[in-house]
């Protein structure tokens, strides 16, 4: 092993040309005896920095290496680690085939851990073996290499500038101003070319109108999560129910999910303009948080607080769902409801303001008048 290093270093190949970078890896490495006087020369005589015993050294066999492990022991340990990889690979293949895999079968949950254990053995065996080999059995001399200066010489820089300038002059650009101008215009305009393509990413939609509309329509029944219409009396005082508009796709519409809450009518503070938006202590709010759009559904019965699990905005359901805490700045929009002839809850119309997070085009004020369209 060290033979090869010695051969390499002292062979003619070791005399390679000085590379441009300035690694001074040439003449010095031809010396027959590799000992090095590096920094430690300051406090000791010339000494070899090799960290591992050389094969022909005094402790070639059964000797003790730098790590305190005998060479024989080290070889054994490294070989065992490499064999451990083989065991890991075999184990991996066996487990891949033999461990129950199908969901629900007995012991199926051991499939992934079993693969993991053997794959880990396979990888760690090779990895630890290589590292241990390098640390115990390979010659690892501390070596000094000079850094090459990074900056070019002034002459080189001047030459480069001269070449650039000459080439630039040769293009004729300094004399033909029109060429330069038209090139800048033509080539520069290429930067604009892809911009229209960006607008293919979405069909044009009027932003404010789109964001202001949900699936709720006048007369839409309030459906629960299973699609059953909700009736007056389905909910106890203190109860809540997720409700969705009775339209195709209403259950999955990202902007239409709402929450029906029932509290004692005397607990409910309602603005005069919204007196007929509630029915017998039943009130409906959009669950799309006015902060970042998470569903606000955690309802605290005692305090009438609605809590958003994403960023902890808290809204007062008994008082127009005004924000009490957290980063949300606006109340949850309220849906005006009434009860139809059969006792089912229906929406009086869509929300009167955009649900969910704020956006630039959102108008500061919205009226409390429900459009019956």
């Amino acid at each position, binding site marked *: 092993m060290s033979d090869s290093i010695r051969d390499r270093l002292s062979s003619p190949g070791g005399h390679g040309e000085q590379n441009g970078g300035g690694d001074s890896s040439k003449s010095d490495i031809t010396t027959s*005896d590799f000992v090095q006087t590096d920094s*430690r020369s*300051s406090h000791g005589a010339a000494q070899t920095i090799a960290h591992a015993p050389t094969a022909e050294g005094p402790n070639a066999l059964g000797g003790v290496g730098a790590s305190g492990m005998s060479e024989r022991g080290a070889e054994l340990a490294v070989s065992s680690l490499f064999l451990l990889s083989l065991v890991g690979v075999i184990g991996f293949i066996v487990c891949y085939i033999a461990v129950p895999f199908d969901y629900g079968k007995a012991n199926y949950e051991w499939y992934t851990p079993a693969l993991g254990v053997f794959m*880990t053995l396979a990888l760690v065996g090779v990895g630890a073996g290589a*590292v241990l080999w390098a640390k115990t059995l390979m010659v690892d001399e501390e070596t000094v290499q000079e850094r090459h200066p990074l900056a070019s010489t002034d002459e080189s820089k001047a030459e480069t500038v001269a070449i650039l300038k000459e080439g630039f002059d040769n293009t004729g650009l300094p004399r033909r101003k029109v060429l330069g101008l038209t090139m800048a215009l033509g080539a520069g305009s290429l930067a604009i070319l892809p911009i229209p393509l960006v607008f293919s990413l979405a069909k044009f939609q009027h932003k404010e109108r789109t964001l202001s509309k949900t699936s709720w329509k006048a007369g839409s029944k309030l459906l629960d999560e299973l699609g059953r219409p909700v009736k007056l009396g389905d909910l106890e005082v203190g109860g809540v129910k997720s409700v969705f508009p009775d339209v195709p796709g209403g259950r999955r519409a990202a902007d239409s999910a709402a929450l029906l809450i029932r509290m004692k009518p005397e607990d409910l503070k309602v603005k005069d303009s919204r007196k007929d938006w509630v029915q017998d202590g039943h009130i409906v709010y959009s669950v799309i948080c006015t902060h970042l759009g*998470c569903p606000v559904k955690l309802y605290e019965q005692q305090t009438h607080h609605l809590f958003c699990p994403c960023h902890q905005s808290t809204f007062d359901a008994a008082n127009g769902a005004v924000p009490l805490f957290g980063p949300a700045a606006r109340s949850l929009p309220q849906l005006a409801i009434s009860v139809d002839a059969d006792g089912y809850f229906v929406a009086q119309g869509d929300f009167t303001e955009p649900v969910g997070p704020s956006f630039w085009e959102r108008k*500061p004020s919205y009226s409390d008048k429900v459009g019956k369209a």
Partner: protein
Amino acid sequence: MTSIAEKAGAGTATWVDDRLGSSNFVKRSLNKVFPDHWSFMLGEIALYSFIVLLLTGTYLTLFFEGSSREVLYNGSYAPLKGIPMSAAYASTLHISFDVRGGLIMRQIHHWAALLFLASIVVHLMRVFFTGAFRKPRELNWIIGVLLLILGLLEGFAGYSLPDDLLSGTGLRIAYSIALSIPVIGTWAAFLVFGGEYPGGAIIERLYPIHILLVPGIILGLITFHMMLIWYQKHTQFAGPGRTETNVVGSRIYPAYAAKAGGFFFLVFGVMTALGGLAQINPIWLYGPYDPSQVSAGSQPDWYIGFLDGSTRLMPNWEISALGHTFSPNVLLPTQVLPGILFALMLFYPFLEAKFTKDKAYHNLLDRPRDKPVRTGLGAMSIAFYVILMIAGGNDIIARIFALSINEITYTLRVALFIVPPLVYVATKRICYSLQRADDELLHHGIESGTIRRLPSGEFVEEVVPLPSQYAVLLATTPERKELLAHQAQEHGHAISSKQRGFFRPRGGVLETPAPSEDKQLEGTVD
């Protein structure tokens, strides 16, 4: 047998060399010297994690379907049978329950992503605190910060792909954040998502971004990062014989390469152990995305946590005027704050050089204590970051410790502005104290533990001068170098001022023959 192999090898090598002249390059590369220090492995971990991500990720693409097309699940996982869901979610379930080895690959992939970003962050701290970003390595610092930012994007895109309840919530938040951009917010959000949320195109778009675009850029930047390390040569800590103009370490071949190669497999092994034994992101428990559902305790992957925290701490400032709505409560913590943080990070090397008027080349690393202001700034930044991270888990903390979430939030809001400056001052003071301790060691030496009684009856502890190979580690300032040189003159402990060449032959010229009593310390040099 050996001779045949040797002949074949030599033949191939000759064939290649005849055409490429590769021998010179190979020889130079194999002889390249790398300094050794445990902290230099942190970047290696990041590199190896990325390779693991490429390997496992490529396997996952063979099964994953990046589509929001609705399907009825009909796989092995009984609890979700017959439930409508996106093809993306269904194929992730397929990988987890119907592909042998699919789940472990998915989990290794996710763990590797977490470790990729974690090792980048720790590597970045190493580079920062040791001043490795200084001239001539500012470009590599910038590439590193870009890699961190791209890593964050890549991670977010990746965990959004399965379209489960958790990741869908994250995507909706991302959409809402885009909405908050003044003037162009709705345009940006609609164009990215393909219309009003959910838009129906985001999974389809994130997929090529996650598996082609961003990893391609990351791969290119990593290559450039490595080439610059190679060309500019690695920095090293001060030590015996180490100067600004040399590199002291191991040649790359064979031991260094064996260690680095082995380390790759060890890193891969650790990730495999995690992927096999530690469950991560069990999307089947979250269920498919439903815009009306969210589970309490929804936390993003750790590297997004600081932004989640800043969003939670932000007061609800919103301005509605002149027919428009402007939302600092969203804009500041999610866009302005990371923008400022990453800009500061990108330009830090230039800011420091400007304020310290330091235009010199630096190849020797600083010890953090020797640069109290920089170390203080770094510690301050970490404190700021950690508070944001804690804020990102304020609901979890409130639940575990049965505390009021409001009080935690108010406390953290105050702490975010009070604690970092305190940390800065404390760190600076600790640095100065450590410097004084070093000075003490250099001037007076080590307390030997031997108590001697003087004829006068007085007891004194004997002090041993610091051995030169340790003293040189501390010689980090001009004053100390001068002191050491002075001591060397007095006691004959010279610090070799110059190292010549690649190797020096035995009997090379020594500046000062060293005294023999230091021989006994040789064994402990490393």
